[in-house]
C-alpha cells in the first residue's frame, strides 16, 4: 500500500481568547499554541496501522510554515516514511477548494492507493478539503470515516453519521478517506522513532517546484472572498457565580438544593 496522509498545523483555540487583527480578515495568532489538527492525528494513526498491516509506505503532506516541521517529524516518528512540506504565500488558504488543488498538485504523477486526511480542521472547519481533493485527483472517496478495512483492490469503511449510526460502504482503490476522530487510539511516538525521524526525508517545496500555476490557486482563482471576521456577540443569560473557588462551590450547591433543582 502506498499512502499519503495530509495534515495541518492548527492553533488550539479551545481555551484561548481569539482577537481579530485590524485587517479584519485574520486573527492574532501570536499567543496560540499550535499542533497537529486533531482529526489529522487520527489519520496519521490510521495510515501507520495500514502500513503495519499491509506493508508499503506513508508520505506525509502538509501545507504550512517552517514551525510545522515539528509536527511533521512527529508523524514520521510514529512510522510515516517521508514528508513533503509545501510553503507558498500565493495559495488562497481561505478556500478549501484551492488548498485541495495544491494538495492534488503535490500528489499527481505519483502512484498511490490511499490518501488519508482529517475530516475537519479545528481552525476554519470547512470539512471540504479531502472530498474536493478526491475530485481533483479523479479518484473515489468516503468522508467522516472511523473504521477502515483494506480488502483486495478496495476498502470497506464505516462512515460516522448523526446520532452514532454507522454507514458501511465499500469503495474501489485508489481513494481518498477523510478520517473522523475517535476511531483509533493515536500512539505516542517512541524515543527511537523520534531519533529516526530526524534522518527521514523532508522536502520543502513551493508552487513553482510542483509545477502549479500560482494563478490557478490564488485569491483571484478562488470564487469566494473572505470579507470579514468578527467576534460574535455573547448572548449569555447565565448568572455568573463569583468569589473564591470554595465560595463559588458553596453558592452553587445552595442554589441547586434550595432552588429545588435536585
Amino acid at each position, binding site marked *: 500500500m502506498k499512502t499519503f496522509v495530509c495534515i495541518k498545523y492548527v492553533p488550539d*483555540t*479551545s*481555551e484561548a481568547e*481569539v482577537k481579530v487583527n485590524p485587517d479584519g480578515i485574520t486573527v492574532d495568532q501570536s499567543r496560540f499554541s499550535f499542533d497537529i489538527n486533531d482529526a489529522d492525528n487520527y489519520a496519521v494513526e490510521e495510515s501507520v496501522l495500514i502500513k503495519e498491516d499491509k506493508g508499503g509506505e506513508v508520505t506525509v503532506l502538509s501545507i504550512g510554515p517552517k514551525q510545522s516541521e515539528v509536527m511533521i517529524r512527529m508523524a514520521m516518528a510514529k512510522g510515516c516514511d517521508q514528508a513533503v512540506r509545501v510553503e507558498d504565500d500565493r495559495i488562497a488558504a481561505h478556500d478549501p*477548494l484551492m488548498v485541495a488543488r495544491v494538495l492534488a498538485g503535490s500528489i499527481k504523477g505519483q502512484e498511490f492507493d490511499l490518501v488519508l486526511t482529517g475530516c475537519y480542521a*479545528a*481552525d*476554519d*472547519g*470547512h470539512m*471540504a*478539503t479531502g*472530498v*474536493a481533493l478526491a*475530485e*481533483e485527483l479523479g479518484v*473515489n*472517496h*468516503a468522508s*467522516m470515516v472511523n473504521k477502515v478495512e483494506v480488502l483486495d483492490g478496495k476498502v*470497506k469503511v*464505516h*462512515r*460516522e*453519521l*448523526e*446520532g*452514532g*449510526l*454507522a*454507514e*458501511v*460502504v*465499500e*469503495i*474501489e482503490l485508489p481513494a481518498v478517506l477523510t478520517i473522523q476522530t*475517535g476511531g483509533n487510539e493515536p500512539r505516542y511516538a517512541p524515543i527511537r522513532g523520534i531519533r529516526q525521524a530526524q534522518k527521514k526525508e523532508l522536502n520543502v517545496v513551493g508552487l513553482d517546484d510542483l509545477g502549479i500555476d500560482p494563478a490557478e490557486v490564488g485569491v483571484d482563482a*478562488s*470564487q*469566494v*472572498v*473572505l*470579507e470579514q*471576521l*468578527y*467576534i*460574535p456577540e*455573547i448572548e*449569555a443569560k447565565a*448568572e*455568573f457565580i463569583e468569589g473564591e473557588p470554595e465560595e*463559588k*462551590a458553596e453558592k*452553587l*450547591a*445552595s442554589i*441547586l*438544593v434550595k432552588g429545588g*433543582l*435536585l
Partner: protein
Amino acid sequence: MGNVLVVAEHRRGELRDISFEMMAVAPRLAADMGGEAVALLLGSGIDDLAKKMAGYGVKVKVVDDPLFENFNAEKYQKALSALLDEQKPAVLMTGHTAQGVDFMPSLAVEKKLPLVTEAIDLLYEDGTLKATRQMYSGKVNATVAFKEAETYLVTIREGALEAPDPAAAGEVEKVDSPLKEDVPYRQFVEYIEAEVGDVDITQSEILVSVGRGLKEDKNLPEIEALAEAIKADIAGSRAATDAGWIPHDRQVGTSGKTVKPKLYIALGISGAFQHIAGMKGAKTVVAVNKDPEAPIFNEADYAIVDDLFKIVPKLTEKLKELKG
C-alpha cells in the same frame, strides 16, 4: 432563473430535521434572487416524504429510482451534476451533514463552482450572495462573499435555523432519474446501529457531563463522587468519548445523543456547536469552565469561571451536607 434548489435529506424512510430547517432561509433567499425555492428528493418509494416536504409551501421535485434507495455520494454527485446543467438554479443548498459534506466539495470541483460550507445565515444584497459561518471553535464569525457564478453551492449547519411551521401545500413533480446506471466503484453495504450501553442518557433526569477539561481518566472518581451525591448519570462531550474516558454511548451532541434532563451540569466542556445541539433541551444548565469565552456559557443558567478541580470536590461535599 434565481431558483434555490434544496436537497432534502432523508434516511431510512424519514426526512431529517435539516430539510425543514433549510426552509427557514431558502424561500426568502429565492424571493430576493428573483426565483422560487424548490426542494429536491432523491430516493426510492418516497411519495409520502415528498408530500410532507411540499407541506412547507415549496415546490418539490422527486426522483424516484431504486438506485437511490440508500445514500451514495457518487450517485448524488452524478444526479446533481446533470440537474445543475439542466435547471441552472442560482443556489444549490444541502445540509452540512454526513451526506452533504460527502458530495458537495467534489461536485463544486467537478462543476468549477464556488462552495461555502456550514453557513449559519445567507443574505443576497446588491447582487452578491454572502454567507455567515463560524471558525475557531465558534469563537469567530466570518462573512464570506461569493464571486459571481452560475450556481452558488452552500451547506447549512444543522440546528442553526428554526424550521418554519408547515404552510399551504406546494406542488409535487416527478422528474426522470438522471442516473442511467449503478456506480460499481462505491457500494452501500449496511447501517450499523450505535452501541447500546448500560445507561440510556436520553432518559436521565440529571446529567453530569465532562469534556476536555477532565484532562485524564484518573480524574474521573471526583466526577463520579459528585454524580453519586446527586443521583446523576455521567455523560461526556466528543473530546471525552474520543479520549476513552467516557463510553461512546454516553456522548452528548450531534454525533451522539440528544438529551433533555431537568439538570445538566457541564464540567470542562467548551460547548462546541455540535455539543450544544445535543443538550439545549435541558431545563437548567450549570457550566463550570476556566475559559470565560467558552460558548457553553451562552447556554448556561448558572456559570462558574474556574478550574473544575477547584470546584467539584467542595461542591460534592456541600451538596451532601445540604441534602443531609
